[in-house]
């Protein structure tokens, strides 16, 4: 059997039923550890003072905001190509979580920016890109809710997600061209292996990022279960109507 068997709603419900409690515990544990460690037990940065503590919220949420969209892109493609219902519902369940992550990244960024750059908001490339991402999430969710027929809604939102991804990338470069920003370079350069923050900050940051990732997975699984139930409910009601 391949991974595709989990795209069957019945199998998905069965697997996530026992998986979800464990994952939830793990997510609570790691988010708690990361944030408590970051908040209580890290020193202040010599330049940024205590505001450096915001990094434990800002970076993981920004990371998840982008990862959520990437995940939606992948699941949308799977839906379009293989028409697995669970895949479409995963994308639907992920969108609001991604939206909240984007919002957290934007708000914490603004709060951090105020003492550092002297302004809550600047039309800096990264900030602007996130604002555009926020709009994409809003449009995506609105389209899901506006279309009555669920399979059609899945189709249309998948196409929107694909087209939106291309334009999000375009916007990213366009915005770069438009305004060179204030934002510092990435704090977690995975590709280069180098680090711009020291270990004292890095370890709790890693834990926090893992925690946000797990929290995202838990929320998406929980919400997908709800969506599957909602689809079954709809099908049952339709059958009731047909029978009467």
């Amino acid at each position: 059997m391949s991974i595709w068997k989990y795209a069957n709603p019945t199998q998905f419900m069965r697997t996530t039923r026992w998986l979800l409690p464990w994952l939830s515990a793990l997510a609570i544990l790691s988010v708690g550890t990361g944030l408590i460690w970051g908040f209580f037990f890290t020193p202040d940065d010599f330049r940024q003072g205590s505001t450096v503590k915001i990094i434990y919220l800002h970076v993981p949420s920004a990371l998840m905001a982008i990862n959520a969209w990437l995940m939606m892109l992948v699941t949308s493609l799977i839906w379009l190509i293989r028409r697995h219902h669970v895949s479409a519902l995963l994308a639907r369940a992920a969108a609001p979580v991604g939206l909240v992550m984007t919002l957290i990244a934007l708000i914490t960024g603004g709060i951090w920016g105020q003492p550092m750059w002297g302004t809550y908001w600047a039309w800096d490339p990264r900030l602007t890109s996130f604002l555009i991402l926020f709009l994409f999430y809003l449009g995506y969710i609105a389209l899901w809710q506006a279309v009555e027929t669920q399979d059609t809604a899945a189709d249309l939102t998948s196409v929107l997600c694909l087209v939106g991804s291309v334009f999000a990338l375009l916007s990213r470069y366009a915005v770069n061209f438009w305004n060179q920003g204030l934002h510092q370079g990435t704090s977690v350069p995975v590709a280069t292996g180098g680090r711009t923050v020291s270990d004292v900050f890095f370890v709790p940051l890693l834990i926090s990022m893992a925690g946000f990732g797990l929290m995202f997975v838990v929320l998406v699984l929980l919400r997908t279960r709800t969506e599957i139930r909602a689809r079954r409910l709809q099908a049952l009601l339709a059958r009731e109507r047909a029978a009467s």
Partner: protein
Amino acid sequence: MIPDLGKYQGAVLSAYAISLLLITVTVALSLWRARVVKQQLNDAEARAKQAPDTH
């Protein structure tokens, strides 16, 4: 209890407060909707059992 945050206390605390609030609201809404849908589905399931398929 709370570490000395110096002059940036307001910024740091509000960042944590708003983020935790948003996360809590998301989790609460997800759980609430899960419960509502589950309840509705159970009702529909019971009705379907009561009136077996007329087809």
